[in-house]
């Protein structure tokens, strides 16, 4: 504590420089937090995928539909606990740019297989009772400013209804939240029965099945067993864990995770250069002062820690504030796309990574000047100063 005035005084020597450095570190970590949240928005589907869930699609492509008749055979398969069908509705609201995910499902079954869906009891009851109603995720509700009780028209280019139109109308019965951080709330769920009776074609067909297994450790065996059953039929299947399914989906838009990691890497590297340079410069300017302190009896170790305290101070104040503000902004509904992203939050691991990075910046940016202080010769340092 008694060294505090020393450290503060060396930081206040070039106030503007210290301020700029703090600002760059602050901005870099603000960005880090934000990018981590955006990355999470894309990849959290993979992270939060249920270990006990399998997805069964057509063997060749998810676009090919599967027979509804498979459902009973799936349920009868050893190791299967529950199953629900879902289908790609592919609609949008008013204009094509307002595309989002809608799935016709069997409400009771789907809610059971996805305990992550958090829905108030009366909204749940309302949805189950009204076959023409739908529930929407929180992010979607925010995106279009929809409320419970609204009636919304959705246009599906894929599915014509029996009136010969592609417009389907839904009453919003509830808004669900994510029971687990990162769970997708950007979509809409409605009743399979409503869909089945309303559609002009496709009788007896569904998009895919979501299957819950009794024992997650056995899921590979169960998947093999399921696909084996339908092998050599006209609709062969491919059953994979939900995580792999999500990953495959993500891979179609490129390796988002790697792209964001690269951006984050560049930001942090630049930051290291900036901080390192500041500390190095300030130590270089103070070589003679460090020499004098050493002559007065300050050990090399003490001088070293003074240098590190300085670099850590910059990193922790700038970086800590950056992370904190990022977290506050993201938490207070800072989704920059206003609901387009399925989820928006800074994952815990990213925050920890941020904290470690802050410490890393302090350590590495202090290392060079510290080693300089360590090697300094008194006499030379004074001579140069004179």
């Amino acid at each position: 504590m008694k060294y505090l005035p020393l450290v503060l005084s060396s930081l206040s020597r070039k106030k503007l420089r210290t301020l700029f450095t703090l600002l760059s570190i602050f901005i870099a970590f603000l960005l880090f937090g934000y990018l981590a949240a955006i990355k999470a928005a894309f990849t959290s589907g993979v992270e939060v995928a249920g270990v006990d869930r399998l997805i069964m699609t057509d063997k060749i492509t998810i676009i090919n539909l599967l027979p509804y008749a498979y459902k009973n055979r799936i349920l009868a398969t050893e190791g299967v606990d529950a199953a629900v069908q879902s289908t790609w509705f592919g609609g949008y609201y008013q204009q094509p740019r307002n595309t989002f995910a809608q799935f016709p499902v069997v409400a009771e079954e789907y809610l059971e297989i996805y305990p992550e869906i958090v829905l108030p009891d009366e909204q749940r009851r309302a949805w189950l009772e009204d076959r023409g109603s739908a529930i929407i995720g929180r992010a979607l509700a925010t995106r279009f400013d929809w409320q419970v009780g609204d009636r919304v028209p959705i246009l599906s280019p894929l599915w014509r209804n029996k009136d010969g139109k592609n417009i389907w109308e839904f009453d919003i019965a509830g808004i669900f939240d994510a029971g687990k951080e990162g769970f997708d709330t950007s979509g809409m769920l409605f009743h399979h029965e409503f869909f089945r009776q309303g559609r002009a074609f496709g009788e007896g067909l569904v998009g895919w099945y979501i299957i819950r297994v009794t024992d997650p450790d056995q899921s590979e065996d169960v998947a093999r067993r399921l696909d084996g059953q339908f092998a050599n039929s006209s609709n062969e299947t491919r059953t994979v864990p939900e995580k792999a399914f999500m990953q495959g989906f993500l891979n179609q838009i490129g390796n988002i995770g790697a792209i964001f990691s690269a951006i984050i890497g560049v930001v942090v590297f630049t930051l290291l250069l900036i901080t390192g340079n500041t500390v190095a410069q300030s130590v270089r300017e103070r070589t003679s002062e460090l020499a004098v302190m050493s002559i007065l009896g300050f050990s090399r170790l003490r001088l070293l820690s003074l240098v590190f305290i300085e670099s850590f101070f910059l990193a922790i104040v700038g970086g800590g504030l950056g992370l904190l503000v990022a977290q506050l902004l993201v938490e207070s509904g800072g989704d920059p796309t206003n609901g387009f992203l399925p989820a928006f939050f800074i994952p815990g691991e990213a925050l920890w990574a941020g904290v470690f990075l802050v410490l890393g910046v302090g350590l590495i940016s202090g290392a060079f000047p510290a080693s300089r202080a360590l090697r300094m010769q008194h006499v030379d340092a004074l001579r140069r100063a004179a």
Partner: protein
Amino acid sequence: MALVEVKKLSKEYKRGVETVHVLRDLDAAIPEGDFLALMGPSGSGKSTLLNLIGGIDKPSSGTIDVGGQRIDNMPERKLTQWRAQHVGFVFQLYHLMPMLTAARNVELPLLLTGLSRSERKQRVAAALALVGLSDRAGHKPKELSGGQEQRVGIARAIVSDPSLLLCDEPTGDLDRKAGDEILDLLDGLNKEHNKTVVMVTHDPHAAARAKRTLYLNDGLLGTEPEA
């Protein structure tokens, strides 16, 4: 028994292929309570000798004994501690920390001791009073005159009460009046506080204030200006 005893002290620098012998087999003894002026032409090695005695430089050969302790072969860590306890340095260019107030500058050596905050404050106040700068405790170096800066430098050198004061041209950057005040201070420290003072100087007027003067020439010490 001398406070400082130097035997067969040599210091040389290698500059490319050529070797510069700054000090050659130099012998010297400085008794306790001495006020010694060290003179000699520029480049003769006065600063080098002072730095060796103060343990901030290492000899090429020979022994240095200060207060009964060999410091020429002391490991760096021990030497650093030793300096803090036994020697006070006064520099020509003061070498104060520009961002710290006079009081904080004087306090620096005390940070290495186990003294409490209030004890440190008390000692700092006493040292500043001794050099007549009590009213400038809160000033930064750039708000002080050269003579005042040097007095802060002296206060810093004596605050931890070392027995040996090493001054390298302490008046070299000051005018006559300010220089005289510094010399008065050193004189008082020597006479009233029993500090042993070694002072490098180019100024015969300053040297005259010392108890005796030695001349460094061609790597050797003598009592006459020209060897």
